[in-house]
């Protein structure tokens, strides 16, 4: 966990309002788990509208040899808008890697893993899939998007394992919800990242196998000091009663915390 100026090495639009950003710096050599994130200070452009707080973005994949991180983000507000205006060569103040990611070792050797992603919850699953296949784990991906124009990384995921695409409107792949396909998959451990309703639905379906979910919360510090991101544990007897999404998570074993 360090703070440094990382250099933008590539900025590419990969779907409607979705960008792939490559950053070079030492943080890329410090990532320990897929599903960790970085907290970025987005440079302002105009005096009247500048982001103050950092923005948390998951690490999609990492290339430590080339000291490079890949992030994928959707433009939703001011910070992500300004981030999408940064160009190769520009420097961005990045703090990371932060948090606890997906436990890769939960899948027994020679086992099978299922990944379920929705929208911009999909990116960290790519790094996870890379880490799992590196270990010889067989991976299946069920990825949901709103529509044709929102899909990204289909080929990249397909190169690693079976990949089922869903769209809300059926404009590409299957029409429906990612949960529709869970029953068809064979797996030992499941991992999910995406919008809250999706996580809840997945948690309702996958009750018999280990499931790990990645959560989002608005953040202040990003590393455990401000309690902006605290969520209740499900177990009322838990000695602390809460977890911090930024440092105890963002990935939790399903059932550890209340999904909210």
């Amino acid at each position, binding site marked *: 966990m360090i*703070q440094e100026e990382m250099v933008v090495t590539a900025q590419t639009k990969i779907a409607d309002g979705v960008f792939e950003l490559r950053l070079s710096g030492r943080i890329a050599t410090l990532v320990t788990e897929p599903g960790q994130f970085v907290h970025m200070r987005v440079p302002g452009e105009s005096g009247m509208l500048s982001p103050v707080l950092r923005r948390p973005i998951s690490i999609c994949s990492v290339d430590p040899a080339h000291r490079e991180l890949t992030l994928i983000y959707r433009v939703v507000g001011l910070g992500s808008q300004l981030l999408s205006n940064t160009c190769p060569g520009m420097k961005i103040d990045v*703090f990371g890697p932060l948090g606890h990611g997906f436990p890769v070792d939960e899948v027994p050797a020679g086992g099978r893993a299922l990944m379920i992603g929705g929208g911009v919850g999909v990116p960290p699953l790519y790094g996870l899939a890379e880490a799992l296949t590196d270990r010889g784990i067989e991976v299946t991906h069920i990825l949901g998007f709103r529509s044709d124009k929102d899909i990204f990384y289909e080929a990249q995921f397909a190169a690693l394992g079976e990949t089922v695409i869903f769209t809300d409107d059926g404009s590409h792949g299957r029409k429906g919800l990612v949960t529709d396909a869970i029953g068809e998959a064979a797996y030992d451990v499941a991992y999910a990242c995406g919008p809250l309703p999706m996580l809840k639905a997945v948690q309702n379906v996958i009750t018999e196998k280990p499931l790990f979910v990645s959560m989002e919360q608005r953040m202040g*510090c990003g590393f455990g000091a401000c309690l*902006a991101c*605290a969520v209740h544990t499900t177990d009322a007897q838990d000695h602390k009663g809460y977890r911090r999404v930024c*440092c105890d998570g963002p990935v939790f074993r399903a059932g550890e915390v209340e999904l909210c």
Partner: protein
Amino acid sequence: MLEVHLPGLDLKNPVMPASGCFAFGKEYGTLYDLNQLGAITIKAATLHARFGNPTPRVAETPSGMLNAIGLQNPGAEQIISEELPYLAGYDVPVIANIAGSEMSDYVQTAEKMSASPVVRALELNISCPNVKHGGIQFGTVPEVAAELTAKVKAVSAKPVYVKLSPNVTDIVAMARAVEQAGADGLSMINTLLGMRIDLRTKRPVLANQTGGLSGPAIKPVAIRMIYEVSQKVNIPIIGMGGIQSADDVIEYFLAGASAVAVGTANFIDPLICPKIIHELPGKLNALGVSDINDLVGRSWKSWNRKNG
């Protein structure tokens, strides 16, 4: 040049993290050596553990942020047994911020926290709503704040700094009331009450609806209040609100502060406190100032009386 001496607090420099923005130090301790800090103000302690408010608890605003953490903390006893030992390992004075919903909560918490040898001073957070008085804030009625201060002073083994809320018509009246009641110092300011509304959901962004506004946006309000109050009281002021640079620290001293706390800026730049501390001597030299104490209140003190 940077040493500052306040009731109960002998500080190697006047810069400390503000309460609630630094937890109990452990996280920042993994990033830098906390011995560099002038002091550490720990997160508000209440008598019993509190979970705080539902999320979202923070929202961004122009040059600032809103928070409604809701005083989440493990309770005074847990803090003393689980959190303070870590800080005991450092040579940095600890200020314990205390809060409550009734006078008796405050008094008991103050008694416990001030008894810890690690704690050098208390900071009384009077911005909390007083449940017994129909939710009115302790910090908005001079008589209530004075009564609370006197009661806490009576049990505290350490000097008591009262942290004033800026959400009042007459900040000088508040300051005078708590000084009269025995406060050893003041902390100014706590957050301004604010709100943001999400256009999509049409509801307040914070689950708690309103929150406390902090960050550079509120600095002019804090500077004004310290300027007014420091001319009317004889106890030192720990200044805070939007500090993010050594220049800001100097501005607070000129206004009338004798030390400063850095809150929100820690989230934006986790290394900001040591950065400011390292920049201060150079900035003071550039202004021809050899002792930062000479700057206290210089914006209103007569020009010929040095440090008068």
